[in-house]
């Protein structure tokens, strides 16, 4: 149930927007997600599989070899669930199972969490090693979008 609802809600929303779209100009999607690094980072673009590997603890480096540290939004945030569903195809229980596997085999701990998009942006802006994901509306010049999550 818990997993169906957001999907179903999104499907309903899409349908409503499609119908409404006949009258209104294309509105911003429910949430447009961007993956960001610090504006001071040399990284300019990441592929979805590279982002997935960093956030699942499978890869500890950016493609250029610099160390990459993922930063999560808080547990239960809709943006977080959407990010993982789109980038890793994992629902919250599957993601929990994944990190349980990592923790209980001694391979790693899940990324640190901060409160919201603004907090992620602030932390990422300050540290070129960090990578985060935020709502597109929270973007500013202190960070660089490296992937628009479709």
């Amino acid at each position, binding site marked *: *149930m*818990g*997993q*169906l609802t957001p999907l179903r809600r999104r499907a309903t929303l899409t349908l409503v927007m499609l119908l409404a779209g006949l009258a209104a100009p294309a509105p911003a999607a429910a949430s447009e997600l961007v993956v960001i690094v610090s504006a001071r980072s040399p990284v300019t673009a990441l592929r979805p*599989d590279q982002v997935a*590997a960093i956030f699942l603890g*499978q*890869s*500890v*480096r950016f493609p250029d070899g610099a*160390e990459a*540290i993922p*930063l999560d939004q808080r*547990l239960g945030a809709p943006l977080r669930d959407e990010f993982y569903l789109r980038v*890793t*195809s*994992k*629902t*919250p*229980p*599957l*993601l*929990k*199972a994944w990190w*349980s*596997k990592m*923790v*209980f*085999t*001694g*391979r790693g*701990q899940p*990324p*640190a*969490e901060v409160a919201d998009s603004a907090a992620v942006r602030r*932390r990422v802006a300050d540290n070129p*090693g*960090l990578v985060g994901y935020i709502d597109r509306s929270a973007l500013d010049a202190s960070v660089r979008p490296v992937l628009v999550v479709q």
Partner: protein
Amino acid sequence: MQHSFRGHHLTASLLALALGAGFDAHAEDAGDGTPSVAVSGFGTVGVVHSSEEHADYIASALKSNGAGATRRWSGDVDTRLGLQLDAALDKRWSAVLQLVSEMDLDNSYRPRVEWANIKYQVTPELALRLGRVALPMFLTAEYRKVGYIYPWVRPPVESYGTLPFTSGDGIDANLRWNLGPVRNTSQIFFGHADQKLVDPMRGYARRVFGLANTSDWGALSVRASLLGGEATAAIADQLFDALDASGPSGAALTRAYAIDHKQISVASIGANYDPGTWFLMAEASRTRTHSLLGATRSIYASAGWRHGALTPYLTWSHVRAVGATSSPGLPLAGLPPQVAGQVAALNAGLNQLLGTVPQQTSVSAGLRWDLRANTALKLQYDRATPHAGSHGTLTNLTPGFQPGRTIHVASVAIDFVY
């Protein structure tokens, strides 16, 4: 019964300790290298019913009893509680302690130190661990005690039930490396393993080496592993002493079957394809023990579909012996009647041991229901058939047991992580 009661009490205390600690000590670091401690844990509460009243259905050879003969409904097959402390000193040094409480061969739930090791992260890709670590074997063996991670109530018993040794003391190295789009993790272990059997008996394995490699490519994960060592366990010592005393042919039987400095090996290769909405998993393995534990080959395949919070799944699993499962024993011809009787009893004892080499096929259907993002309820039905005269993965046989009869096992379990 008294033991069992005390065990439950211990479990409850451990649970209280774990939950109490979990509420106030979950300090998370932000990857900036400051010291931190994380408390986490896992557990399963399960009950199992078996239709076979002349033997116990167990999920691990290290359990004193299960469902069937001892109790028709047993809470001891899958129930367990684990607690893990992860301490990070800085970016390079960390330590982990994991305690697990579950039914053991002494019919108690006394917590056991599953892991206790310190880790040194040489580079972001290379880590060295010293202490008690998980032995590298099978696809899901490292986390077989954490039911929440896998879809089933328990990993297929035909492959996993007879080799319940999960940790060893020594040193291991983990290396992450990429080959094009394929992300690999390679592990090497060297050390020894010491497993308590029925107190005061123990099983030892010296010069244990393990190699494993996991390759992830998108939704596909492939793992190959090889574990070997020299095992000694004082199982059926009296029988082998008597065989030794009976002369050279008896001593030859002891050499063939006693678990006395025997080279054992376990090799497996498995794959898991999991694009999110469904999964397909298969694994083949073989074990060699040069002893009464026999040589076996096992294989299983499992598939499931995820519909929202529900994951129905099907599993087929099989194990067969590829070595001797019986022995003609000592010749009786020409022996005086009283001696012949004693020798026949020795032969029967030996064959009873060899009959424990598992040969079994089972088909399982189950449903996992993710109640919330750290708790899953599982229902599973297993139809298991021991064959070729073996009693499969069953234990505690009573005289009415007939080999070859299909047994029906129903399980309900709640798995959680915190």
